């Protein structure tokens, strides 16, 4: 199951890399925007890994809380970054 978790997280990581790479081809963003996006993605993946490992060891409470704390913080960061930094830039590009 640990191997499956590693594979699944690898797939998710590569999908995230592809998404960020695609974003980089259509829009130019500042370094701090990239930092926020990458940190958010890492936090989301970390939370999923934590959830999986905690369920495997038989501690669902740890998994649930880990998902909220780590992935929740990551999603929050991604949403804010998208809303205030990426979104306006995309909108400006579309109008332009």
């Amino acid at each position, binding site marked *: 199951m640990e191997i499956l978790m590693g594979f699944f997280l690898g797939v998710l990581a590569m999908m995230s890399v592809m998404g960020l790479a695609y974003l980089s081809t259509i*829009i130019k963003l500042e370094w701090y*925007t990239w930092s926020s996006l990458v940190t958010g993605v890492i936090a989301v993946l970390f939370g999923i890994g934590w959830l999986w*490992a905690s369920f495997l*060891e038989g*501690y669902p409470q740890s998994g649930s809380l880990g998902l909220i704390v780590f992935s929740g913080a990551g999603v929050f960061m991604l949403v804010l970054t998208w809303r205030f930094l990426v979104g*306006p830039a995309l909108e400006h590009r579309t109008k332009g």
Partner: protein
Amino acid sequence: MSNEQEPATVPEEQQKAAAGADAPGEAPDLLKDSSRRLLFKRAMVGGGAALLGGAGAYGAARVSLEGRPVKDYPLIDETLFKPKDQRDTILNFVSSKALNEKHPERNEQYNRLQNKEFDWVNGFRDMYSKPWDNNKPGYTQMDRALQKAGWEPLNIAGSRLSANLQPDTPFNSWDQSGVEKEQYQFKSKQEASDAIKTAARLFGAVKCGIARRDRRWDYDPLYDIENEKELSWEKDFPFEPKTVIVILLPMDYDCISTAPAWTADGTAADGYTQMGVKATQIATFLHVMGYHAVGAGNDLGSSVPYAIMAGLGEGGRNGHLLAPGMGPRVRIAKVYTDLDFVEYDQPHTWGITEFCLSCGKCADACPSEAIPKLEDENGGYGFQPSYEFSDEPGYTWNNHLGIRKFYSDAKKCYNFWVENGGACSACIASCTFNEPDAWHHWFIMAINPFSPGFLHGLMAEAHPAFGYGHTNDPTKPLKFWKTGEGMRTNIQMKNNIGTSNKS
């Protein structure tokens, strides 16, 4: 600074190619599409960076888990320190009728100050005769059976008292008649060290370190409880030890989680049995290699400082060795030998003792309040005890003074064992470093040395919030007795190192 400017421009023909707008009947040449090439290029760079970052983080974690060598262990106050008389230890004292008759003031003082009517010697004898209650999880006939079964091999071998510091028992015999005359010559110190640790690994040790013999940690004089006789290192011990091999033996995570129920005593008792078996196996290995060796459990010397000297962990608030990855959920066995052509280990730190200064979960969980609390003087950390009544003359007779560490009142701890009808282990189960064997716990362990004090306090609070370390929970024994499910196939190949995944 703005993100809103400079949209990337894509040439029209490339946009057509990307949309598959090639001439009818022709396959689009994706590699000629510069926007796709750019995407793949950046994905590769991003993927490579992610791979390098992951590998780098893994490597850094591995280095961190090796620990950092320390030069200032132990810190000793020479005005207080003197070698520890084996008779002045709790487990030795309660096993000896003669010592109890010699020191009635110890019992009288404890009962007077603690307002108890505790019988030290008979208490130990009667500990496992407390009646079970099949309606009380953790205190049923089944839990009593587990306790007794755990001890039984030591009883059969006549070595049960080794847990109470009795030296020269059949498992940890001083008999050296099996030592071969031909002494194997190791090519290097590293080869000797590797060979010993390989044997220890094979026989079931989860960690093994090698320390120089240090008279400060040896009980002196030694004491034969069965014959009520003082023993001397010079006159009675069969050789002059130069080296102490220290092995750690794991206790079961799910079983310890049931503390302070009798169930937890099952893995503690089994741990003592394993100590006897493994130490005698390594001693015999050395005998056949032509070296003198004597195995030891709790006897001969203080196990925790020897384990620290062997680089296996750090001293914790609860008085146990805290080993990275398992915390205090280990039992320590030692092998004294005259082999000194060996690579010695040295003390290391992982920021564990530092963490204990901000944690205190074991003290909160201790049913007898024997462990120093955070609010005690210096957090309970110093060269002598600061617990209640420690300033009463003679009350700290069981402590080894003059070493900088956390001092517990083991008298209260032992008193609870007897009242409980079995050893407790609540300070082991509740320890923040007592973790199942999973990557996220190793991750926390790896970042611990770099975490500031306030984060230690936060991590200590997070541990129970995430569901770990709860004691006195009647659901735990019920869950433990289900951990045998799936043992026919046991696809996780987990047994007693981490959780069995059924907790």
